[in-house]
């Protein structure tokens, strides 16, 4: 019997491999595809799809409808109705988790995942990842911020020091635009002093926990740096093209390059962010570096899905990224590439992209971040601005932040009331809670455990020791496979042999 089964399985394997191998030739055909791209990229994307149709080796013809949908809005629009959404869509990386949870992204197969890993910069690869799986193709790695300045106000030698910049702005009666009441920007001060804030996700895009040290001695240094700028009268909470309305320094990204170049003309200056000084020591302001991704919507027709993945790989490949990186007046978009080969290309470097890559030395690749964090972290600046700048007040602001993020993972009542088994059970050593299910007052472990004589454990409630049975550890007498059973009313723990 076993032999027969083995033969059958081997046969099935060969068959499935056969279909796999011939898949590429089966991709030939015409596909109606909707692509969501930001307005500015619609024309370029249309011509890139035409180039794909003309040159691909699989015989794929894509009849593309390119709709202008901003990458900032993609998730909101997709989640409205995934089935009616775009088949391929540009989106900003912070939407990854939401899109995975909504079932709007196809998990990449091994080949596609390797394509992403091999061709793109480390930060952008990380952005396309949830758990150990990849869900999207990096399009750019330019979603970061740096500093534009007016050379007629700011002398060249002052651009490395935040204090000097602020003094120059104050002296000239000009503003310093830095959108610090936005977590994306104010986190730069904390990264600059070496703090970190990492959210941990599982393979399904769910957030499990956070590892964050903003509320620390290092964090206090960052808070002092923040205070030194937000307490100045020249500070403006903005990342717009404010040179026309009285700013001499604006911290923003590549998307405003063309406008600012036009605004400042000969006085155009661009550089990485400055350093701030606390207690005689200099800290270079850090930043987030992020990227735009290209997502493929799950398809009912697997062949179409495979064809879309080929198109996505072309659109995010070296050729297309280089085209996008060209200056806007040469038919490009000025988008900084994530593709390693395109990054080397001298055609992909306008002054803004150069400043961005200099700033990237101090940047943290933006990981998956819980949606609530942005609102929690932006309050740090508001609180610091309202404070008197004393250490106590700054620490209070950080403490408030810390409490707020801790509350995100506060347990639900269900978890608080549930009993779990903890001990030297199933290869664990008092470090994992094994779930139990209730039937009235009687709780039974979800699995039967192989236990040796001398195995010890307890059943505890809410993953805490306030309520735990029995009072002394339960010790197993005879080896065997048992379910653990607890009568919560009496507190009696027993073993039920598994059949």
């Amino acid at each position, binding site marked *: 019997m076993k032999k027969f089964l083995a033969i059958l399985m081997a046969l099935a394997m060969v068959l499935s491999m056969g279909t796999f191998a011939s898949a590429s030739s089966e991709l030939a055909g015409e596909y109606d595809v909707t692509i969501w791209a*930001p*307005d*500015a990229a619609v024309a370029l994307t249309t011509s890139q799809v035409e180039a794909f149709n003309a040159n691909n080796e699989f015989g794929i013809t894509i009849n593309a409808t390119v709709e202008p949908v901003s990458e900032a809005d993609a998730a909101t629009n997709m989640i409205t109705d995934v089935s*009616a959404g775009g088949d391929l869509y540009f989106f900003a990386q912070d939407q990854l988790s939401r899109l995975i949870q909504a079932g709007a992204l196809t998990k990449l197969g091994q080949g596609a995942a390797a394509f992403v890993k091999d061709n793109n910069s480390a930060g952008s690869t990380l952005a396309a990842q949830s758990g150990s799986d990849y869900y999207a193709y990096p399009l750019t790695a330019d979603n970061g911020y740096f500093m534009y300045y007016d050379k007629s106000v700011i002398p060249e030698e002052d651009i490395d020091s935040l204090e000097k910049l602020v003094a120059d702005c104050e002296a000239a009666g000009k503003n310093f635009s830095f959108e610090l009441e936005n977590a994306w920007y104010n986190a730069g001060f904390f990264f600059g002093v070496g703090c970190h804030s990492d959210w941990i996700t599982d393979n399904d895009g769910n957030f499990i926990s956070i590892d964050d040290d903003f509320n620390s001695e290092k964090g206090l240094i960052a808070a002092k740096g923040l205070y030194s700028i937000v307490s100045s009268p020249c500070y403006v909470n903005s990342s*717009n*093209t404010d040179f026309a309305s*009285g700013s001499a320094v604006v911290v923003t990204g590549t*998307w405003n390059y063309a*406008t600012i170049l036009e605004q400042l003309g000969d006085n155009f200056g661009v550089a990485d962010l400055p350093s701030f000084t606390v207690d005689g020591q200099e800290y270079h302001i850090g930043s987030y570096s992020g990227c735009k991704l290209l997502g493929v919507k799950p398809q009912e027709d697997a062949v179409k899905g495979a064809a879309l993945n080929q198109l996505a790989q072309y659109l995010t490949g070296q050729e297309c990224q280089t085209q996008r990186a060209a200056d806007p007046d040469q038919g490009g978009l000025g988008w900084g590439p994530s593709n390693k080969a395109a990054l080397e290309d001298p055609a992909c470097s306008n002054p803004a992209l150069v400043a961005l890559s200099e700033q990237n030395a101090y940047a943290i690749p933006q990981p998956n971040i819980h949606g609530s964090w942005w609102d929690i972290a932006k309050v740090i600046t508001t609180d610091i601005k309202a404070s008197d700048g004393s250490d106590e007040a700054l620490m209070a602001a950080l403490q408030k932040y810390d409490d707020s993020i801790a509350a995100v993972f506060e347990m639900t009542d269900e978890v608080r009331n549930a009993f779990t088994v903890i001990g030297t059970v199933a290869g664990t050593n008092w470090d994992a809670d094994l779930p139990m299910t209730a039937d009235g007052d009687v709780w039974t472990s979800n699995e039967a455990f192989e236990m040796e004589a001398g195995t010890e454990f307890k059943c505890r409630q809410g993953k805490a020791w306030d309520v735990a049975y029995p009072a002394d550890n339960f010790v197993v007498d005879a080896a065997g496979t048992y379910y653990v059973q607890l009568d919560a009313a009496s507190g009696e723990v027993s073993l039920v042999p598994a059949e």
Partner: protein
Amino acid sequence: MNEKRHMGLRTLNRVSNTSIYVILTIISVIWLLPFVFITLQSFRVESTYQVGYVIPKQWGLQNYINLWNSDFKRWYINTFIIALASAVLITIIQLCMSYTLSRFRFKMRGPLMRFMLILGMFPGMLTMIILYRVLSDLGLTQANAVPGLILVGVASSGMGYYVSKGFFDTIPKSLDEAARVDGATRFQVLCKIILPLSKPIVIYTILTAFMGPWGDFVFARYVAFGTSAGYNVAVGMYSWLTNDQIARMYTTFCAGGVIVAVPVTILFLCLQKYYVEGVTGGAVKG
């Protein structure tokens, strides 16, 4: 003594009048400023981003030309079709409904009126998701959003009968009876007797029916999501306000705002003398 007191009153009058006018002028300036601002910005051609001054340094029509060359035309036509069709259909349905409830006596009249009153108390947004599903199954979303939005706007319009029913109730029934005696049908009574006497309320119904879809954003965005061909002006213009677009599109956006205001302004100017009468008309007798 008398003379003096008289003078005092006149001065007092003048002072109070002056201060009232000053206050009203200030309020109207504050109120009008955004409109003036938008209009001026729409003629600014030296740059396309937000600036710190109001008066353009270079005047021109480039922004309006940009509008003409963008999808705005399509959005404008969409909005106009939706608003016009809704205005016609809603007016007909609502007036028929009001006439029926005002003049006919039938068994379920009372319960029906109460039922509609209660239904009307639920915020319309509650039904958004289920309406979306229905429209999507009918194929009336995204590129076909225009008929979908008309359908949604018109479908529940009968429930807005209160104001015009109140107005019809004030027209003496003896007029109907006289017409009926002369051989008019119910429909003729409505068209030839009631409606000519109810001009203000008809105008009011048309105006409100037109204005609703004209400024609709939430539902229009939900139904037409991600498909430029189905957008109305509000949704389409909002798509120009994203971070990556606003520096390029800001003055064009202002020009769009001016164009959107044009038909509404014309409509109001033509119909405003009826409007005030209409708004309060139904309130005389419930």
